[in-house]
Protein backbone atom coordinates (compact mmCIF):
# COMPACT_ATOMS: atom_id res chain seq x y z
CA UNK A 1 0.00 0.00 0.00
CA UNK A 2 2.79 2.40 0.95
CA UNK A 3 4.67 1.63 -2.24
CA UNK A 4 1.51 2.15 -4.28
CA UNK A 5 0.83 5.50 -2.60
CA UNK A 6 4.40 6.64 -3.23
CA UNK A 7 4.37 5.56 -6.89
CA UNK A 8 0.88 6.89 -7.55
CA UNK A 9 1.53 10.16 -5.70
CA UNK A 10 4.86 10.71 -7.44
CA UNK A 11 3.30 10.00 -10.85
CA UNK A 12 0.43 12.40 -10.20
CA UNK A 13 2.77 15.14 -8.96
CA UNK A 14 5.13 14.60 -11.87
CA UNK A 15 2.25 14.88 -14.32
CA UNK A 16 1.04 18.04 -12.62
CA UNK A 17 4.53 19.53 -12.73
CA UNK A 18 4.92 18.74 -16.44
CA UNK A 19 1.39 19.92 -17.25
CA UNK A 20 1.85 23.23 -15.46
CA UNK A 21 5.40 23.83 -16.69
CA UNK A 22 4.56 22.98 -20.29
CA UNK A 23 1.26 24.81 -20.08
CA UNK A 24 -1.00 21.94 -21.09
CA UNK A 25 -4.57 22.90 -21.87
CA UNK A 26 -7.81 21.06 -22.46
CA UNK A 27 -8.89 23.58 -25.10
CA UNK A 28 -9.49 22.18 -28.57
CA UNK A 29 -7.59 23.69 -31.45
CA UNK A 30 -6.17 22.70 -34.82
CA UNK A 31 -2.50 22.86 -35.60
CA UNK A 32 -1.44 23.50 -39.17
CA UNK A 33 2.00 23.70 -40.68
CA UNK A 34 3.38 25.34 -43.76
CA UNK A 35 1.31 28.52 -43.68
CA UNK A 36 2.76 30.70 -46.45
CA UNK A 37 4.41 34.00 -45.57
CA UNK A 38 2.20 35.68 -48.17
CA UNK A 39 -0.72 35.27 -45.76
CA UNK A 40 0.23 38.54 -44.11
CA UNK A 41 -0.38 40.36 -47.40
CA UNK A 42 -3.58 38.41 -48.13
CA UNK A 43 -5.19 37.34 -44.83
CA UNK A 44 -8.33 36.17 -46.58
CA UNK A 45 -6.45 33.38 -48.28
CA UNK A 46 -6.35 31.42 -45.02
CA UNK A 47 -9.50 29.61 -44.07
CA UNK A 48 -10.00 28.71 -40.47
CA UNK A 49 -11.37 25.22 -40.01
CA UNK A 50 -13.18 26.49 -36.93
CA UNK A 51 -15.03 29.10 -38.92
CA UNK A 52 -16.44 26.50 -41.26
CA UNK A 53 -17.28 23.90 -38.66
CA UNK A 54 -18.61 26.01 -35.85
CA UNK A 55 -19.97 29.11 -37.42
CA UNK A 56 -20.78 28.61 -41.03
Amino acid at each position, binding site marked *: *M*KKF*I*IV*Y*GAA*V*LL*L*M*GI*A*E*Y*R*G*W*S*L*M*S*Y*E*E*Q*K*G*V*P*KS*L*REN*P*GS*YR*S*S*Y*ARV*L*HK
Partner: protein
Amino acid sequence: MDGKQEIMAEPSLTAPTPAPASPQVKTLKCSGCGSPITLRGMERTESVACEACGSVIDLTDENLRIISTFQSKIKHKPLIPLGSRGRIRGDLFEVIGYLRRAVTVEGVDYEWSEYLLFNPYKGFRWLSEYNGHWSFLKTTTHIPRKKGDGARYLDKTFLHFQTAESRVVFVLGEFYWKVQAGETCKFTDYISPPMILSKEQTAQETDWSIGEYIEPETLWSAFKLTSSIPARIGVAPNQPSPYAGQASSLWKLIGYLFLAAVFIHLAIFFLSQNKLAFENRFTFQQKDKGKAIVTEFFEITGHPSNVVIKTAAAPLDNSWLFLNMALISEDGRAYDFGREISYYHGTEDGSAWSEGNFSDEATLPTVPPGRYYLRIEPESPAPMVNYHIQVYRDVPQWSFFFIVLGALCILPILLIWRLARFEGARWSESDHPGTMWMRIPDSTPEEEEGKEKTKGKVDR
Protein backbone atom coordinates in the same frame (compact mmCIF):
# COMPACT_ATOMS: atom_id res chain seq x y z
CA MET B 1 1.24 -2.66 30.65
CA ASP B 2 -1.05 -3.77 27.89
CA GLY B 3 -2.19 -7.25 27.09
CA LYS B 4 0.38 -7.70 24.38
CA GLN B 5 3.10 -6.89 26.82
CA GLU B 6 1.70 -9.40 29.20
CA ILE B 7 2.05 -12.14 26.63
CA MET B 8 5.34 -10.95 25.29
CA ALA B 9 7.06 -9.29 28.18
CA GLU B 10 5.72 -10.61 31.45
CA PRO B 11 8.82 -10.90 33.65
CA SER B 12 8.43 -14.59 34.14
CA LEU B 13 8.21 -15.05 30.38
CA THR B 14 11.01 -12.80 29.30
CA ALA B 15 13.59 -14.60 31.36
CA PRO B 16 13.67 -17.97 29.61
CA THR B 17 13.87 -20.82 31.99
CA PRO B 18 15.94 -23.88 31.41
CA ALA B 19 13.97 -26.62 29.72
CA PRO B 20 14.58 -30.28 30.23
CA ALA B 21 17.45 -31.38 28.07
CA SER B 22 15.30 -34.15 26.72
CA PRO B 23 11.57 -34.81 27.00
CA GLN B 24 10.70 -36.54 30.25
CA VAL B 25 8.21 -39.13 29.16
CA LYS B 26 6.44 -42.06 30.69
CA THR B 27 4.48 -44.73 28.89
CA LEU B 28 1.45 -46.78 29.81
CA LYS B 29 -0.91 -49.16 28.08
CA CYS B 30 -4.32 -47.99 26.97
CA SER B 31 -7.04 -49.51 29.13
CA GLY B 32 -9.23 -49.72 26.06
CA CYS B 33 -7.04 -51.26 23.37
CA GLY B 34 -3.68 -51.93 24.96
CA SER B 35 -1.82 -49.56 22.67
CA PRO B 36 1.15 -47.79 24.21
CA ILE B 37 0.44 -44.21 25.33
CA THR B 38 3.18 -41.67 25.98
CA LEU B 39 2.79 -39.24 28.89
CA ARG B 40 4.65 -35.93 28.71
CA GLY B 41 2.85 -33.83 31.32
CA MET B 42 5.08 -34.87 34.22
CA GLU B 43 2.15 -35.96 36.38
CA ARG B 44 0.41 -32.62 36.05
CA THR B 45 -2.21 -33.98 33.70
CA GLU B 46 -5.42 -35.74 34.67
CA SER B 47 -6.50 -37.43 31.48
CA VAL B 48 -5.03 -38.78 28.28
CA ALA B 49 -6.71 -39.71 25.01
CA CYS B 50 -5.51 -42.81 23.16
CA GLU B 51 -4.60 -42.12 19.55
CA ALA B 52 -5.52 -45.66 18.51
CA CYS B 53 -9.00 -46.14 19.98
CA GLY B 54 -10.10 -42.68 21.16
CA SER B 55 -10.52 -43.78 24.78
CA VAL B 56 -9.92 -41.07 27.36
CA ILE B 57 -8.20 -42.50 30.43
CA ASP B 58 -8.40 -41.01 33.92
CA LEU B 59 -4.79 -40.70 35.04
CA THR B 60 -5.83 -39.93 38.62
CA ASP B 61 -7.48 -43.32 38.91
CA GLU B 62 -5.17 -46.11 39.94
CA ASN B 63 -7.01 -48.53 37.64
CA LEU B 64 -6.71 -46.07 34.71
CA ARG B 65 -10.41 -46.23 34.06
CA ILE B 66 -11.84 -45.02 30.77
CA ILE B 67 -13.94 -41.91 31.35
CA SER B 68 -15.17 -41.41 27.79
CA THR B 69 -14.59 -42.56 24.25
CA PHE B 70 -14.45 -40.42 21.11
CA GLN B 71 -16.10 -42.35 18.32
CA SER B 72 -15.21 -39.77 15.67
CA LYS B 73 -15.07 -41.27 12.19
CA ILE B 74 -12.68 -38.53 11.16
CA LYS B 75 -9.26 -38.90 12.69
CA HIS B 76 -7.89 -35.41 12.88
CA LYS B 77 -4.17 -35.07 12.51
CA PRO B 78 -2.60 -32.21 14.43
CA LEU B 79 -0.65 -29.78 12.25
CA ILE B 80 1.91 -29.66 15.06
CA PRO B 81 2.48 -33.30 16.11
CA LEU B 82 2.27 -34.26 19.77
CA GLY B 83 5.72 -34.26 21.32
CA SER B 84 6.94 -31.39 19.14
CA ARG B 85 8.98 -28.87 21.07
CA GLY B 86 9.37 -25.25 20.10
CA ARG B 87 10.44 -21.97 21.62
CA ILE B 88 7.65 -19.38 21.73
CA ARG B 89 8.26 -15.94 23.20
CA GLY B 90 11.56 -17.19 24.56
CA ASP B 91 10.28 -20.29 26.35
CA LEU B 92 10.43 -23.89 25.27
CA PHE B 93 7.08 -25.65 25.14
CA GLU B 94 6.10 -29.18 24.24
CA VAL B 95 2.82 -30.08 22.56
CA ILE B 96 1.12 -32.60 24.85
CA GLY B 97 -2.53 -32.39 23.87
CA TYR B 98 -4.72 -31.67 20.90
CA LEU B 99 -8.45 -31.17 20.75
CA ARG B 100 -11.03 -30.06 18.25
CA ARG B 101 -13.91 -27.91 19.32
CA ALA B 102 -17.00 -27.12 17.31
CA VAL B 103 -19.69 -24.52 17.46
CA THR B 104 -22.96 -24.57 15.58
CA VAL B 105 -24.21 -21.22 14.32
CA GLU B 106 -27.43 -21.06 12.30
CA GLY B 107 -27.17 -24.76 11.57
CA VAL B 108 -23.58 -24.61 10.34
CA ASP B 109 -20.76 -26.30 12.24
CA TYR B 110 -17.51 -24.39 12.64
CA GLU B 111 -14.51 -26.28 14.01
CA TRP B 112 -11.17 -25.17 15.30
CA SER B 113 -8.13 -26.80 16.87
CA GLU B 114 -6.50 -26.21 20.22
CA TYR B 115 -3.04 -27.44 21.15
CA LEU B 116 -2.08 -27.79 24.78
CA LEU B 117 1.54 -26.80 25.41
CA PHE B 118 3.53 -27.60 28.52
CA ASN B 119 6.68 -26.31 30.13
CA PRO B 120 7.46 -27.70 33.62
CA TYR B 121 8.50 -24.23 34.84
CA LYS B 122 5.86 -22.16 33.07
CA GLY B 123 2.89 -24.49 33.16
CA PHE B 124 0.38 -24.75 30.38
CA ARG B 125 -0.25 -22.60 27.35
CA TRP B 126 -2.58 -22.98 24.36
CA LEU B 127 -2.24 -22.56 20.67
CA SER B 128 -5.55 -22.05 18.94
CA GLU B 129 -5.93 -22.48 15.19
CA TYR B 130 -8.90 -21.56 12.99
CA ASN B 131 -8.78 -21.34 9.20
CA GLY B 132 -4.99 -21.07 9.25
CA HIS B 133 -4.98 -18.27 11.87
CA TRP B 134 -3.12 -18.93 15.14
CA SER B 135 -3.24 -17.45 18.62
CA PHE B 136 -0.98 -18.11 21.59
CA LEU B 137 -2.98 -18.10 24.84
CA LYS B 138 -2.46 -18.28 28.57
CA THR B 139 -4.69 -17.87 31.55
CA THR B 140 -5.17 -14.34 32.85
CA THR B 141 -3.43 -13.28 36.03
CA HIS B 142 -6.57 -11.53 37.30
CA ILE B 143 -10.21 -11.22 36.43
CA PRO B 144 -11.00 -8.76 33.63
CA ARG B 145 -13.59 -6.09 34.37
CA LYS B 146 -16.84 -5.70 32.47
CA LYS B 147 -17.03 -2.69 30.20
CA GLY B 148 -20.44 -2.36 28.57
CA ASP B 149 -20.76 -5.52 26.56
CA GLY B 150 -16.95 -5.67 26.33
CA ALA B 151 -14.21 -6.11 28.89
CA ARG B 152 -11.32 -4.18 30.37
CA TYR B 153 -8.04 -5.89 31.05
CA LEU B 154 -4.60 -4.42 31.68
CA ASP B 155 -5.78 -0.92 30.76
CA LYS B 156 -7.05 -2.14 27.43
CA THR B 157 -10.65 -2.22 26.26
CA PHE B 158 -11.70 -5.40 24.54
CA LEU B 159 -14.78 -5.41 22.31
CA HIS B 160 -17.27 -8.20 22.52
CA PHE B 161 -16.91 -10.39 19.46
CA GLN B 162 -18.90 -13.53 19.94
CA THR B 163 -20.70 -15.64 22.49
CA ALA B 164 -21.56 -19.24 21.67
CA GLU B 165 -21.52 -22.74 23.05
CA SER B 166 -18.73 -25.01 21.96
CA ARG B 167 -18.37 -28.76 22.28
CA VAL B 168 -15.34 -31.02 22.22
CA VAL B 169 -15.46 -33.27 19.16
CA PHE B 170 -12.02 -34.85 19.14
CA VAL B 171 -9.10 -35.23 21.53
CA LEU B 172 -5.60 -36.57 21.43
CA GLY B 173 -2.93 -36.64 24.13
CA GLU B 174 -2.97 -35.29 27.64
CA PHE B 175 -5.06 -32.69 29.43
CA TYR B 176 -5.04 -31.19 32.90
CA TRP B 177 -8.71 -31.91 33.37
CA LYS B 178 -10.85 -34.94 32.77
CA VAL B 179 -11.91 -34.21 29.23
CA GLN B 180 -15.24 -35.70 28.18
CA ALA B 181 -16.58 -36.52 24.74
CA GLY B 182 -19.12 -33.85 23.79
CA GLU B 183 -18.12 -31.70 26.76
CA THR B 184 -19.63 -28.25 26.28
CA CYS B 185 -18.88 -24.80 27.52
CA LYS B 186 -20.17 -21.31 26.86
CA PHE B 187 -17.42 -19.13 25.53
CA THR B 188 -17.25 -15.39 24.98
CA ASP B 189 -14.51 -13.77 22.94
CA TYR B 190 -13.47 -10.14 23.29
CA ILE B 191 -10.93 -8.60 20.97
CA SER B 192 -8.42 -5.83 20.84
CA PRO B 193 -6.24 -6.96 17.92
CA PRO B 194 -3.79 -8.55 18.09
CA MET B 195 -5.06 -9.56 21.53
CA ILE B 196 -8.00 -11.75 22.33
CA LEU B 197 -9.63 -12.21 25.71
CA SER B 198 -11.62 -15.38 26.07
CA LYS B 199 -14.04 -16.41 28.77
CA GLU B 200 -15.10 -20.03 29.10
CA GLN B 201 -17.97 -20.87 31.39
CA THR B 202 -19.17 -24.24 32.58
CA ALA B 203 -21.54 -25.06 35.40
CA GLN B 204 -18.55 -25.48 37.69
CA GLU B 205 -16.19 -22.66 36.80
CA THR B 206 -15.31 -19.63 34.68
CA ASP B 207 -11.91 -19.38 33.07
CA TRP B 208 -10.38 -16.35 31.42
CA SER B 209 -7.49 -16.52 29.02
CA ILE B 210 -5.59 -13.85 27.14
CA GLY B 211 -4.09 -14.54 23.74
CA GLU B 212 -2.12 -12.91 21.02
CA TYR B 213 -2.28 -13.45 17.28
CA ILE B 214 0.81 -15.26 16.10
CA GLU B 215 2.05 -15.57 12.55
CA PRO B 216 2.02 -19.20 11.37
CA GLU B 217 5.51 -18.76 9.93
CA THR B 218 6.75 -18.03 13.47
CA LEU B 219 5.25 -21.28 14.72
CA TRP B 220 6.56 -23.37 11.84
CA SER B 221 10.00 -21.98 12.48
CA ALA B 222 9.72 -22.43 16.27
CA PHE B 223 8.64 -26.07 15.99
CA LYS B 224 10.90 -26.71 13.00
CA LEU B 225 7.98 -28.08 10.99
CA THR B 226 8.66 -29.21 7.46
CA SER B 227 5.02 -29.44 6.37
CA SER B 228 3.54 -26.68 4.29
CA ILE B 229 1.77 -23.90 6.15
CA PRO B 230 -2.00 -24.01 5.56
CA ALA B 231 -3.30 -20.96 3.77
CA ARG B 232 -5.10 -18.42 5.91
CA ILE B 233 -8.77 -18.06 5.07
CA GLY B 234 -10.66 -14.89 5.84
CA VAL B 235 -9.78 -12.59 8.72
CA ALA B 236 -9.34 -13.84 12.29
CA PRO B 237 -11.10 -12.01 15.13
CA ASN B 238 -7.81 -10.78 16.59
CA GLN B 239 -5.78 -10.60 13.38
CA PRO B 240 -3.98 -7.27 13.32
CA SER B 241 -5.07 -5.18 10.38
CA PRO B 242 -2.20 -4.79 7.92
CA TYR B 243 -3.45 -1.24 7.41
CA ALA B 244 -4.13 -0.17 10.99
CA GLY B 245 -0.47 -0.23 11.93
CA GLN B 246 0.48 1.70 8.84
CA ALA B 247 -2.51 4.01 8.87
CA SER B 248 -0.81 6.89 10.66
CA SER B 249 2.28 6.71 8.45
CA LEU B 250 0.09 6.40 5.34
CA TRP B 251 -2.00 9.41 6.37
CA LYS B 252 1.23 11.29 6.95
CA LEU B 253 2.51 10.24 3.53
CA ILE B 254 -0.72 11.37 1.86
CA GLY B 255 -0.43 14.67 3.74
CA TYR B 256 3.10 15.11 2.41
CA LEU B 257 1.84 14.47 -1.13
CA PHE B 258 -0.77 17.21 -0.70
CA LEU B 259 1.91 19.55 0.62
CA ALA B 260 4.19 18.63 -2.28
CA ALA B 261 1.37 19.38 -4.73
CA VAL B 262 0.91 22.83 -3.16
CA PHE B 263 4.66 23.45 -3.18
CA ILE B 264 5.14 22.40 -6.82
CA HIS B 265 2.12 24.42 -7.90
CA LEU B 266 3.24 27.54 -6.02
CA ALA B 267 6.80 27.17 -7.30
CA ILE B 268 5.61 26.98 -10.93
CA PHE B 269 3.05 29.72 -10.23
CA PHE B 270 5.66 32.19 -9.01
CA LEU B 271 8.25 31.22 -11.62
CA SER B 272 5.80 31.66 -14.50
CA GLN B 273 6.44 34.62 -16.83
CA ASN B 274 2.79 35.68 -17.05
CA LYS B 275 4.02 38.19 -19.59
CA LEU B 276 1.90 40.38 -21.84
CA ALA B 277 3.21 39.68 -25.35
CA PHE B 278 0.63 41.57 -27.40
CA GLU B 279 -2.31 43.88 -26.86
CA ASN B 280 -4.54 45.82 -29.25
CA ARG B 281 -8.05 47.12 -29.76
CA PHE B 282 -10.16 46.44 -32.85
CA THR B 283 -13.55 47.38 -34.18
CA PHE B 284 -15.82 45.13 -36.17
CA GLN B 285 -18.33 46.70 -38.53
CA GLN B 286 -20.77 45.00 -40.88
CA LYS B 287 -18.89 46.35 -43.84
CA ASP B 288 -15.89 44.31 -42.67
CA LYS B 289 -17.88 41.07 -42.61
CA GLY B 290 -15.84 38.19 -44.04
CA LYS B 291 -12.64 40.17 -43.94
CA ALA B 292 -9.69 38.94 -41.94
CA ILE B 293 -6.97 41.05 -40.41
CA VAL B 294 -3.48 40.24 -39.18
CA THR B 295 -1.59 41.85 -36.33
CA GLU B 296 2.02 42.90 -36.27
CA PHE B 297 4.60 40.36 -35.14
CA PHE B 298 5.16 39.95 -31.43
CA GLU B 299 7.73 37.94 -29.49
CA ILE B 300 6.85 34.88 -27.45
CA THR B 301 9.77 34.02 -25.20
CA GLY B 302 10.93 31.34 -22.75
CA HIS B 303 10.48 27.56 -22.74
CA PRO B 304 7.56 25.93 -24.57
CA SER B 305 4.55 26.84 -22.49
CA ASN B 306 1.02 28.12 -22.85
CA VAL B 307 -0.22 31.21 -24.58
CA VAL B 308 -3.41 32.75 -23.25
CA ILE B 309 -5.53 34.95 -25.51
CA LYS B 310 -7.87 37.17 -23.51
CA THR B 311 -10.67 38.88 -25.37
CA ALA B 312 -13.20 41.46 -24.24
CA ALA B 313 -15.99 42.84 -26.41
CA ALA B 314 -18.55 45.66 -26.16
CA PRO B 315 -21.23 46.57 -26.79
CA LEU B 316 -22.98 43.22 -26.94
CA ASP B 317 -26.69 43.64 -26.39
CA ASN B 318 -28.46 40.34 -26.99
CA SER B 319 -25.81 39.59 -29.53
CA TRP B 320 -22.59 37.71 -30.13
CA LEU B 321 -19.14 38.12 -31.55
CA PHE B 322 -17.34 35.11 -33.00
CA LEU B 323 -13.62 35.36 -33.64
CA ASN B 324 -11.91 32.89 -35.94
CA MET B 325 -8.35 33.21 -34.76
CA ALA B 326 -5.03 31.70 -35.64
CA LEU B 327 -1.76 32.24 -33.84
CA ILE B 328 0.77 31.91 -36.63
CA SER B 329 4.52 31.68 -36.23
CA GLU B 330 7.09 33.25 -38.50
CA ASP B 331 8.03 29.79 -39.77
CA GLY B 332 4.46 28.94 -40.81
CA ARG B 333 3.01 26.97 -37.89
CA ALA B 334 -0.58 27.95 -37.10
CA TYR B 335 -2.71 27.29 -34.01
CA ASP B 336 -6.22 27.64 -35.29
CA PHE B 337 -9.17 28.15 -32.93
CA GLY B 338 -12.50 29.91 -32.65
CA ARG B 339 -14.02 31.78 -29.68
CA GLU B 340 -17.42 33.24 -29.14
CA ILE B 341 -18.38 36.09 -26.83
CA SER B 342 -22.07 36.58 -26.30
CA TYR B 343 -24.36 38.35 -23.90
CA TYR B 344 -28.13 37.98 -23.71
CA HIS B 345 -30.57 39.40 -21.20
CA GLY B 346 -34.29 39.95 -20.79
CA THR B 347 -37.29 39.56 -18.53
CA GLU B 348 -39.41 36.49 -18.20
CA ASP B 349 -42.47 36.20 -15.94
CA GLY B 350 -41.47 39.42 -14.25
CA SER B 351 -37.92 38.38 -13.40
CA ALA B 352 -34.79 39.55 -15.12
CA TRP B 353 -32.34 37.07 -16.58
CA SER B 354 -29.03 37.22 -18.36
CA GLU B 355 -26.51 34.76 -19.78
CA GLY B 356 -23.04 34.94 -21.23
CA ASN B 357 -20.52 37.70 -20.58
CA PHE B 358 -18.33 40.23 -22.32
CA SER B 359 -14.99 38.46 -22.10
CA ASP B 360 -13.30 35.19 -22.94
CA GLU B 361 -10.03 33.45 -22.33
CA ALA B 362 -8.44 30.81 -24.58
CA THR B 363 -5.34 28.80 -23.68
CA LEU B 364 -3.09 27.31 -26.32
CA PRO B 365 -0.80 24.62 -24.88
CA THR B 366 2.95 24.16 -25.24
CA VAL B 367 3.66 26.90 -27.76
CA PRO B 368 7.39 27.08 -28.59
CA PRO B 369 9.14 30.47 -28.39
CA GLY B 370 9.40 32.59 -31.52
CA ARG B 371 7.86 35.47 -33.42
CA TYR B 372 4.13 35.23 -33.95
CA TYR B 373 1.18 37.18 -35.26
CA LEU B 374 -2.56 36.75 -34.97
CA ARG B 375 -4.96 36.34 -37.86
CA ILE B 376 -8.42 37.43 -36.79
CA GLU B 377 -11.63 36.95 -38.73
CA PRO B 378 -14.58 38.39 -36.80
CA GLU B 379 -18.27 37.61 -37.31
CA SER B 380 -21.26 39.19 -35.62
CA PRO B 381 -24.88 40.20 -36.37
CA ALA B 382 -24.28 43.49 -34.47
CA PRO B 383 -23.68 46.60 -36.58
CA MET B 384 -20.52 47.38 -34.65
CA VAL B 385 -18.54 45.71 -31.87
CA ASN B 386 -15.35 46.93 -30.25
CA TYR B 387 -13.06 44.19 -29.02
CA HIS B 388 -9.82 44.10 -27.14
CA ILE B 389 -7.26 41.28 -27.46
CA GLN B 390 -4.39 40.54 -25.09
CA VAL B 391 -1.89 37.75 -25.58
CA TYR B 392 -0.11 36.49 -22.47
CA ARG B 393 2.81 34.09 -22.36
CA ASP B 394 3.37 31.36 -19.69
CA VAL B 395 0.31 32.01 -17.56
CA PRO B 396 0.00 29.94 -14.37
CA GLN B 397 -3.01 27.62 -14.42
CA TRP B 398 -5.06 26.37 -11.48
CA SER B 399 -6.97 23.64 -13.31
CA PHE B 400 -4.28 20.95 -13.09
CA PHE B 401 -3.68 21.76 -9.45
CA PHE B 402 -7.33 21.07 -8.63
CA ILE B 403 -7.32 17.95 -10.83
CA VAL B 404 -4.29 16.70 -8.87
CA LEU B 405 -5.97 17.46 -5.53
CA GLY B 406 -8.88 15.35 -6.73
CA ALA B 407 -6.52 12.57 -7.86
CA LEU B 408 -4.75 12.62 -4.48
CA CYS B 409 -8.11 12.43 -2.69
CA ILE B 410 -8.45 8.95 -4.20
CA LEU B 411 -5.68 7.79 -1.84
CA PRO B 412 -7.46 8.45 1.48
CA ILE B 413 -10.66 7.06 -0.02
CA LEU B 414 -8.76 3.92 -1.07
CA LEU B 415 -7.14 3.60 2.36
CA ILE B 416 -10.45 3.98 4.19
CA TRP B 417 -12.08 1.49 1.83
CA ARG B 418 -9.36 -1.13 2.43
CA LEU B 419 -9.49 -0.59 6.19
CA ALA B 420 -13.27 -0.93 6.11
CA ARG B 421 -13.13 -4.04 3.95
CA PHE B 422 -10.69 -5.73 6.33
CA GLU B 423 -12.71 -4.79 9.41
CA GLY B 424 -15.91 -5.81 7.64
CA ALA B 425 -14.44 -9.25 6.99
CA ARG B 426 -13.33 -9.50 10.64
CA TRP B 427 -16.71 -8.58 12.10
CA SER B 428 -18.74 -10.54 9.56
CA GLU B 429 -18.26 -13.69 11.66
CA SER B 430 -19.02 -11.96 14.94
CA ASP B 431 -22.27 -11.35 16.78
CA HIS B 432 -22.09 -7.78 15.46
CA PRO B 433 -21.69 -7.96 11.67
CA GLY B 434 -21.69 -4.63 9.87
CA THR B 435 -21.19 -2.55 13.01
CA MET B 436 -17.42 -2.24 13.06
CA TRP B 437 -17.46 1.58 12.91
CA MET B 438 -19.65 1.72 15.98
CA ARG B 439 -17.42 -0.66 17.88
CA ILE B 440 -14.47 1.61 18.55
CA PRO B 441 -13.25 1.24 22.14
CA ASP B 442 -12.95 4.35 24.25
CA SER B 443 -10.26 4.76 26.85
CA THR B 444 -12.47 5.43 29.87
CA PRO B 445 -12.12 2.50 32.22
CA GLU B 446 -15.32 1.02 33.51
CA GLU B 447 -15.23 0.60 37.22
CA GLU B 448 -17.58 -2.33 37.34
CA GLU B 449 -15.64 -5.31 38.48
CA GLY B 450 -16.17 -8.78 37.10
CA LYS B 451 -17.98 -10.79 39.74
CA GLU B 452 -17.54 -14.24 38.31
CA LYS B 453 -15.97 -16.78 40.48
CA THR B 454 -12.97 -17.90 38.53
CA LYS B 455 -10.67 -20.78 38.77
CA GLY B 456 -7.20 -20.84 37.26
CA LYS B 457 -7.39 -22.95 34.18
CA VAL B 458 -3.78 -23.46 33.40
CA ASP B 459 -1.63 -22.01 36.15
CA ARG B 460 -1.25 -25.13 38.14
